[in-house]
Structures are given as C-alpha cells and as structure tokens.
C-alpha cells in the first residue's frame, strides 16, 4: 500500500515538474519524433538525423532531409562505432545514443535550410563558420547575434527573432524513381495532363505507362522526350495542349507508372474510339478499355 502511494506521488510530482518545465521553456530541447526512421524517409526527423551524424563526423553529405544511401552508411558506421546492432534503422535506442552523443541546434538548422544556405554542421567548429549564404537571400542579417541566443535554448527572447524562426524546415531534396529526374517527371506529367486530364486515375497512369513502355520498346525512341515529341505520336503534343499546366494528380499518376504500375498490360498504343479516324489503329490487337481510351499492342 505504502509503495503504491509513494509511486503515485512520485508520478504526480514528475508529472507536475514536466508540466511546469513545459510551460516555462518556450521550446524544450526536443529530439526526434517517435517514429523509427528508415531509408527512403523524408522530413524534419531526417534533417535532425543527418545533422547529428554530421556533428559526430559520420555524415559528410548535404543535410537535405532525404534518407539516402549516404545517410544510411553514416548511420551504420555510427551503430558500429557505438557497439549497437547494425541495421541502418534509427530506432529508439539508436536515437537515444545519438541524442546523448551529439548536439542539435534546431533553430540554427531550420534557419539555414529555410534561407537556402549552403551549410555544414560539424561539431567542434563554430557553426557560424560553416555557412555559405545562398545566392538570393538577404533575410540572414544579424544571424550571428541570433545564433548566440539560440544556444541558450530557454530564453523567451528567441520568440521574436526573424520571421522564418521556428518554421519547420522542408527537405531540400526529393526522392525520384531511379533513372529519372524531376524534369522528366514534369515533362511526362505535362503529356499525361494534355492527353488524359478528364480520365480517372488509372486512365492517367495508363497513358504514362504507355510512354514508358514505348521508351523500352525497340521500335520507339529511347528517351521520354523522344517518345513524347515524336511527330504525330500524341495529339496533345501536336496541338500544343501539352503546354497546359498539369495538376498534382497527373504527377502522381506519372510517379505510379515510374514505380512500376501499368494498368494497360504492356500496351504501346491507345486511341479514343469516338474520335479515332485511322483504320490502322482499329486493327491493332486490343487489350482493354480504360475510361475513354482503348489500349492495344
């Protein structure tokens, strides 16, 4: 009974203290969210992971918020050096060890990333010396003074620093399917939007899949742009509709197709049966109809 009581009191006490500190410190030294971070992840947790690994000298790449191969090897080396299980996952134990071993100045990092600065975050070097300012930014005046204050995490003063203060940092890189660039994706999204903007999702993925199937086919050009701009291949290209601004759904459809989805069953042609005039296209072996389009070999 006595033990229980003390336990309850203890819990209460701890609870109040945490509550009090939480209200007193405007920004407590928080580290990572609960998630297990794995390769391929994107976001602020990854930024923190990269910054901490760089602080300890394991990570030499850019702090960009995308968990790529560089981060993966850095994390594994860290796990190796600290005698942990080497799995390349930032789970609770790994994160705890990392937090203990390194420092992370969240505001500093956020500021650099939001301002588009080129920077590193090695421990043991004053961080002000590790910043190369981005080309087109001048929001960084007085940076030097600010960073000093930020180190004293609990000063309420930091609340009214520059306006990008505390804004969550967005990753500066993105994952792209292997072998393609964001521009290739954009160009394909343009074509898909021009050709199939009224279609259901699978109809858009299907058009994107046809483009990819053509790139892989020996009878068509070997590049995305070659296939798209091949004379008389796509009506949307011939009449200029390809230059309409595509929406996000077109882009998502392209990503799905690049990641391996193909609702057409390997089709390399398609046509709209209501408007198609060529008798040749009707003669192709048809696979199926999706939305307004008939897909064929």
């Amino acid at each position: 009974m006595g033990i229980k009581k003390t336990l309850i009191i203890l819990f209460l006490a701890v609870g109040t203290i945490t509550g009090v500190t939480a209200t007193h410190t405007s920004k407590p030294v928080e580290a990572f969210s609960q998630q297990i971070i794995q390769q391929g992840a994107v976001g602020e947790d990854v930024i923190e992971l990269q910054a901490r690994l760089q602080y300890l000298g394991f990570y030499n790449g850019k702090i960009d918020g995308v968990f790529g191969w560089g981060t993966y090897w850095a994390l594994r080396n860290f796990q190796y050096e600290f005698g942990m299980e080497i799995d390349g996952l930032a789970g609770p134990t790994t994160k705890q060890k990392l937090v203990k071993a390194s420092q992370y100045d969240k505001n500093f990092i956020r500021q650099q990333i939001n301002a588009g600065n080129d920077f590193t975050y090695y421990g043991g070097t004053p961080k002000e010396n590790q910043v190369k300012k981005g080309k087109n930014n001048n929001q960084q005046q007085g940076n030097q003074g600010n960073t000093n204050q930020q180190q004293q995490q609990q000063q309420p003063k930091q609340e009214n620093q520059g306006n990008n203060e505390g804004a969550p940092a967005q990753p500066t890189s993105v994952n792209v399917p292997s072998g393609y660039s964001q521009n290739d994706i954009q160009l394909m999204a343009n074509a898909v939007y021009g050709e199939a903007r009224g279609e259901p999702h699978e109809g858009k993925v299907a058009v994107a899949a046809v483009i990819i199937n053509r790139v892989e086919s020996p009878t068509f050009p070997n590049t995305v742009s070659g296939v798209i701009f091949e004379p008389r291949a796509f009506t949307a290209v011939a009449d200029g509709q390809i230059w309409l601004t595509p929406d996000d759904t077109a882009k998502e459809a392209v990503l799905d197709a690049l990641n391996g989805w193909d609702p057409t069953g390997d089709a390399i042609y398609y046509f709209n049966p209501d408007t198609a005039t060529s008798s040749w296209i009707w003669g192709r072996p048809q696979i199926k109809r999706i939305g307004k389009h008939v897909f064929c070999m």
Partner: protein
Amino acid sequence: MIRWIIITVLVVGVGATGIWGYQEHQEKNAILIQAENTYQRAFHDLSYHMDLLHDKLGTTLAMNTRQQISPQLADIWRITSEAHNDVGQLPLALLPFNKTEEFLSNIGEFSYRTAVRDLESEPLSEDEVKILETLYKQAGEIENELRNVQHLVLENNLRWMDVQLALSTNDTQSDNTIIDGFKTVEENVKGYTEGNFGPSLTGTSSENHPYQFINGDDLTEKEALNQAKNLFQVEDDIEITIAKSGEGAEVPVYSASYQADNTHGYLDLSEKGGHPLSLMINREVKEPKISLNEGMENAKKYLEKHNFDDMEIFQSSQYGNYGVYNFLYKQGDVRVYPDAIQIKVALDNGEVLAFSSKDYFRNHQERDIPDAKLTVEDAKEKVNPNVKIQDQNIAVIENDLGEEVLAYVFLGVLGDDTYRIFIDAITGIEAKVEKLKNAELKYKGSV
C-alpha cells in the same frame, strides 16, 4: 443589276479570302508548334543524355573487368554522339557553345580509344582513371546546369522559338533564361582544363517474360466480382463494374473498378486463378501521420494476408504523403530479384493504396538454385579495389542477356556514390554494376 453582281462577287471574294487567310493562319500555327516541338525534343533529349552520360561515367569508375568496361565505354561513346547531335539540332548557331561541344567530343574520343583497346593486356592506367574521374565530375556539373535550365523552361513554359527570334535579332535586352542558362554551361566548361533504363530497381525484370507461372482454375465473372469486393474492402452496396480484357492481352484479366465519394479503385485479376496483378486506389492523401517504417509494416501485413510468403523488403521511398515499397521473394538465403512486388501505402492512415505483382507473376517459380562455386572472399577479389564494400548478400538476378544467374551482391561506396555490384557466383564474371540514385536537389525555380 451589274452593281449587284459586282457586290456579290466582291462579297464572295472577301469571304473566300478570309477563309483562306484563316486556314493559312491555322497552318502556320500548326507548323510553328511542330517546329517548337522539334526544338523541345532536342533540348530535353540533351538534358537526359547528359544525365545518362554522367551516370555511365560514374558506373565505369566502379567496374573492374574488361567484359564490363569495354561495352560500357562503347555505350558512353554512343551517348556522347547522341548528345552532340542534340546540340546540333538546337537553334544555338549564334550562341557560343563550342566549348561544350568540344567537351562532348573529348569524352567521345577518350571512350572510343579505350573501348576498342584490349583492356586485358593493357588495362586502364592510373592517369586514365583520373581522367575518367574528372570527366565524371564535369559531366555532373553540366548535367546540373542543364537540368536547372530545363526546370525553368518547364516551369515558365519557355519557347525555343523565342530564343531563335532573340538570337537572330540580336536582341540583347530581353533577358532570356535559356540563353543565359546555356551561357553558364559554356562558361563552366571553359573553366575545365584539357583533359538501361527502366525502374532500375534491379527488382523489376528487364525482360518481359510471358506470364508462365500463373495457374489455377478459370474465374467466372461472378467469382471475379466477389474477389474484387474482397480486395477493395468496400461495402456491399457499392457498385463495381467489371470487364474482361480483349484479344491483345498477354494474359486474360478481369478489370474491376468502383467509384465512391472521393475514392476510386481499379483492379486487374488474372482470369486464371484470380490472382491480383495490380490494384490502385485513388483518393486524396492528407499530411503524413505515420512513418515510412510503420507504412512498411502495413505493407508486410498486406502481403501476408494475401498469401505472398517469404517476401523481404528491398527498397523503400517516401514520395510526399505516401510511401512506395519494393519487396523481393527470398528462397532460403537467396534473394530473387526478378520476383518483385511493389506496394504503395498512404502515410496519413496507413492504408495500402496500390499493389503490383506483375513482375512476381511473370517470373515466380520454385527455383533449383545451384550452389555457389566461388566463396564470398573469391568474389570480393573481383570487385574494383577502389570500391569500399559495406554490405553483401547473395541473390538470383538477371544478367544482361536476361538469363537468371546466381550472384554475390556487394554494396559499396566510391566517392560520394553507392554502387551495387553483382559477381556471378558460378563463373566469377562481373555480371552487372549499378550506380544507385541519390536524392535529387529541388530546383529552385524563379526567374
């Protein structure tokens, strides 16, 4: 009377001229669009080829044996000539771009010379490796600049016809992003001293084998409907449309789809056996609430639930609000690259949004995997000594000829890049070298 005739003739004449004029105008527009498209194509091809060139040069650096390097260099030679050709099609005649062209032909010459040489008796010298390294770095810089220009062109709908106009009228005032971009590329190149495609997640098989491993009884339409309902996990009252594929289909499928509120689903079931080949559910996905890792656990559960046993995660990537996972079949200790399944999970509530088992059903069978003749240590000897090996495993992969072979897979680092190197476990041949894609910088688009 005569007056009326004249008036009629004139009116008809004016009308006809108008129609003729309109047609001419339409034709002119069509031709303009076509000319623009040709320029656009050459330009986008050029950026792509530079990208490819950069990757190929990088891959060459990690290769070790002649059987791999010679064809690779020949390929580089081909790509440089294509890129060179692309430059030639752009209306850049009045813009100094000759240094870049020179750079391309330098790479071409170097790769040709080394490709035709017998590398067995005269392997790449240290100097030549150094040249390759610089070429790799420079190609990377050019690629970056071009990708940046390309981003601006796409973002702002820039026209090459305008470039042509600006160049021919020597209009220096209007600042033209394309011209500036190409000038930057040229400037950078001046600073230098002398000097396959496919979601290459090797997971997917490069050859499209026929689906020979689909088995089971034929499904009736009613059974297919039930199966679809089951896979979509929708209420009974939602209407599902179902259709059979046509004669052109490689494997006969039932395609089912439904529309409910803001959700739209699409599914392909093989007629034989009712195997789900592809599933897509489309809805708005909100801000991520769960991690990529939790999403993976959901994907795993999904695979188990649908009786895909012994699948192992191979690759995972987060794209905005969803995660895409690649799983490989594992037979004993051996990963089987051709038997891949892709799963897309919404990271707002963890729902499995899409699923594709095409590669799996094309290739999957219980294989008679031979024992390796080489030990891991033997195989390691075959890897380029400059590559720092970090991890290794054994797998069945498809080689360049599309045959399945047993190979040791080494993950290694050279410079800032990670490579996957496959050494045939029976013959010891370097079967394949892949440069693994890094994340791509977001291009900051503003003019």
